[in-house]
């Protein structure tokens, strides 16, 4: 126990009701505000502390993936410019699925706000996605990014997650042979990236060439909301 300072009763001290109440009050106040160093090193374990992963009532879950044969042909809209919210559409498998194993790379959840000082106490959200594109023979460029859904149901682009790929150029000797190109993306979102309340994340795409198409056969998308401090 730390920082609970009780004045001992000395000879000739009057043991009054007020002094008794005061000592009990001092003990109670101390016990209700123990400093960090009152906890023994390695004193806390799985039986004492909750999971770092926060339950956020996500739909359809914290991960989403699809595996479609034959590959789905995607036709995204034209790239609207860096940081623009409009015209991006979610990466999809065309199945209309709503389960973890099918449907768009989109996860929605109860409204949260990043930052341990906010009510949802989510300090960071780890985000991973992988896209598998059968390598095409064209050389169209495609853009991908992460978007979040604000409380007005509008999808907002997280600017520093925008990437551009040219599937046909990256492996130029095996275009159209059936080999696949893996596009990986890993990041950690903090309140610096999303400062407002939001209730969804998705992987979105556009293209540099209007009417360009690409094929996609597998994809996965995972979010992990985490406490970043033990408070």
């Amino acid at each position, binding site marked *: *126990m730390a920082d609970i300072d009780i004045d001992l009763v000395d000879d000739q001290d009057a043991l*009054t*009701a*007020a002094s*008794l*109440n005061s000592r*009990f009050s001092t*003990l*109670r106040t101390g*016990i*209700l*505000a*123990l*400093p*960090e160093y009152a*906890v*023994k*090193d*390695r*004193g*806390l*374990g*799985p039986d004492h*502390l909750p*999971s*770092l*992963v926060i*339950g956020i009532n996500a739909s359809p*879950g*914290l*991960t989403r*993936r699809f*595996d479609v044969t034959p590959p789905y042909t995607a036709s995204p809209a034209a790239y609207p410019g860096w940081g623009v919210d409009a015209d991006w559409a979610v990466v999809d498998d065309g199945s209309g699925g709503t389960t*973890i*194993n099918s449907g768009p790379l989109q996860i929605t959840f109860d409204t949260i706000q990043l930052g341990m000082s906010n009510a949802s106490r989510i300090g960071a959200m*780890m985000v*991973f996605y*992988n896209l*598998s594109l059968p390598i095409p023979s064209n050389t169209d460029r495609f853009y991908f990014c992460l978007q979040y859904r604000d409380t007005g149901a509008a999808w907002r682009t997280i600017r520093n997650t925008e990437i551009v790929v040219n599937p046909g150029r990256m*492996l*130029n*000797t*095996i275009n159209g*042979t*059936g*080999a*696949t190109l*893996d596009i*990986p993306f*890993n990041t950690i979102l903090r309140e610096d990236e999303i400062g407002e309340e939001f209730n969804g994340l998705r992987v979105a795409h556009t293209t540099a060439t209007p009417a360009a198409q690409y094929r996609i056969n*597998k994809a*996965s998308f*995972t979010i*992990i909301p985490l406490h970043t*401090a*033990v*408070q």
Partner: protein
Amino acid sequence: MPSFTYPNTFSDTATSDADDVMENLYTPQTTTPNSLDIINGSLDAVNKASDDNLSRRKVQPFTFARPSMVGATANLDFLEDRWWQGVDLTSGDPDAQFLPIPGGSIQYYQPWDASIVLICWQISWGTDSGANTTNTPIKLFTSTTGSLNATRRQASHAVSGGVRYGKGTDMFYQGHYALLSETAGWKQASLRICSDAEQTRVRVRNMIVIPFR
């Protein structure tokens, strides 16, 4: 729990009673504590100073996650005539013929039920086949769910000449897979390969498993 309120407060005009003092010091309760007996196992987050975060030193290892990693640096050559002679990859992936890749296969212990298990890997591979009809898929297998759709396929190519490793035609795969609500115990995860090309050269960087409690 567990703020607490003493059962007795003392006043100058009341007769002093040692039993009342004793009740404040120690009155065991099966529900909400009401005495200094609270320190006997009833403290929780309410009792911590509100402006203090707990440092890492206060927390036992593997309280929140128990990550493991394996890796390899050597080239790994897989020969079709030794392991997969006659394999037919055109009619689907024959899971039983997939071979675990050293450095891309891990066994790990998960001491508690996990809310999510994140599996990540980095690997590249290529074949020496000149035919344009061969396939070399790599798939993820786990002890919980068998083979998974985390598959990438390096098709061969019609480029003439000899060995093509490292000529920009290798397949690079930095993948992830998430398992939800995994029960405690020993687990396995492995990247496995099958090929109908003559020779496949694999370069694996690592496989990382992070079970989150």
